[in-house]
């Protein structure tokens, strides 16, 4: 398996009035052409990890790593211009709520076409054809109609599909999805995941799936990284989640109510200070 992304000892630090806060404290992993899940609760640093790889960390924060390389390119040494070129073209990102990541005053089709034309020199007609094909690929039934709609005119699930279409149009090799389905209804969530899953396996992309939902991630990804307080506490195969060693992972799995498991009260997580150490 070829390695797409290598992360070694990634740290993200925010300066604040009361001192420096380390959001990510020495995270290391590598990604091939696979589905990797990053799971953690709020404040675990999972989103900041994704943003740091993408180069979207706020300017006042400090990002360091002994290695942060995408396909052999040192991301921390790359110029802002080179990173911009990588974003969208070779690395894409999907965010939680399509309402905030799509331009509200531009039709969906035009946004996809614009994205394509910033990264590739293609004619208008060809761009449109490819955008329509992409909309079809994300299982939008009537692509020609949706092409001309504005983001507020479509449902959340449709918007997220359009977002995925926009992100995939330039044919990226790696995608970072930060809670891509958390704002969606459960049934729509599975549709969107199904689309994502098919595209990843068909195109041989590497996918980093960031989520708070351990069960969803484990049913979707090949490998899971569990983060706590800015650190990786456990890395394991999704199929072996039942054999998780770390008490945090086990606690997280246990504390969710399950249909048929009659546990009153629910087991709660007993946070140990040494987990964060």
């Amino acid at each position, binding site marked *: 398996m070829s390695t797409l992304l290598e992360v070694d000892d990634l740290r993200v630090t925010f300066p604040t009035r009361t001192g420096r806060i380390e959001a990510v404290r020495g995270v290391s992993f590598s990604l091939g052409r696979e589905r990797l899940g990053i799971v953690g*609760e*709020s404040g675990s640093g999972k989103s900041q990890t994704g943003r740091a790889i993408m180069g979207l960390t706020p300017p006042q924060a400090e990002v360091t790593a002994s290695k942060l390389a995408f396909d052999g390119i040192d991301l921390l040494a790359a110029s802002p211009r080179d990173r911009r070129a990588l974003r969208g073209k070779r690395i894409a990102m999907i965010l939680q709520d399509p309402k905030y990541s799509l331009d509200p005053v531009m039709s969906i089709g035009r946004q996809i076409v614009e994205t394509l034309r910033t990264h590739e020199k293609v004619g208008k007609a060809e761009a449109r054809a490819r955008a329509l094909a992409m909309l079809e690929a994300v299982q939008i039934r009537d692509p020609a109609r949706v092409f001309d709609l504005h983001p507020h005119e479509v449902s*959340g699930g449709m918007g997220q599909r359009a977002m995925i279409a926009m992100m995939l149009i330039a044919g990226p090799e790696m995608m970072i999805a930060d809670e891509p389905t958390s704002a969606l*209804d*459960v*049934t*729509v*969530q*599975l549709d969107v*995941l*199904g689309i994502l*899953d098919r595209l990843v396996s068909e195109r041989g992309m590497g996918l980093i799936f960031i989520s*708070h*939902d*351990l*069960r*969803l991630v*484990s*049913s*979707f990804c090949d490998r899971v990284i569990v983060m706590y307080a800015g650190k990786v506490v456990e890395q394991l195969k999704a199929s072996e989640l039942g054999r998780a060693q770390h008490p945090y992972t086990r*606690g*997280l799995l246990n*504390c*969710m*109510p*399950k*249909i*048929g498991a009659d*546990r*009153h*009260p*629910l*087991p*709660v*997580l007993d*946070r140990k200070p040494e987990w964060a150490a």
Partner: protein
Amino acid sequence: MTAALSVDRLEVVFDRFRALKGVSIEVQSGESFGLVGESGSGKSTLLRAIAGLAPAASGSITVNGKKLGTRRDKAFYREVQMVFQDPYGSLHPRQTVDRLLQEPLAIHGFADGEKRIQRALNEVGLGTGFRFRYSHQLSGGQRQRVAIARALILEPSILLLDEPTSALDASVQAEVLNLLEEIRRRRKLTFLMVSHDLAIITHMCERLMVMQNGEAVEHLTAGDLVERRVSKDYTRNLLRASEGFVRTA
């Protein structure tokens, strides 16, 4: 056994949009009843209509044998209280916990405020160390505990819960759900709980109603769901979705 809360063919219309199309439920005293559905199903609207926050176009709501008019009186609010979904939005940003808890007592003219506030804070597991904090000095779980304390301080018999844990982390969710169950047992409360998560509803409620597009899809017991005794496709879909992603082919 008398019904603590019964809703009969309730309709709610917002600008010609029928958010609730003649829904009826009956919740027995001491029971925990769940409403499940996806966004736009009308489950939250039903809750808000009972609380008087959404206008009922027709139908009736009866609480402890008393039929409600369009205006709620003070006695109603001492019977029925609500916990909101978003703990970041349901606490006043410029008030301390103390002030938040004092307000209902002041409105209803309770004299023993000091004692009640301390007891309410202890009951939700916060203790008095949190009493003079502003909401921005609290975590999501702590905020939701304050919201629960505020709802309990008037000693209502019915608690309306609008997705009380959906904005919280899984581990915090477990703590809040346990707290709610414990309070219900201790105070013999009646719960009407809304959630999009079937697992939470089966965990918390004895009976439930599945809703879609402002209508009831079916009435079930928690046992029915555990044994997959559901008759409608919609419910079956929800059940399947709650089990996570299944790769086809």
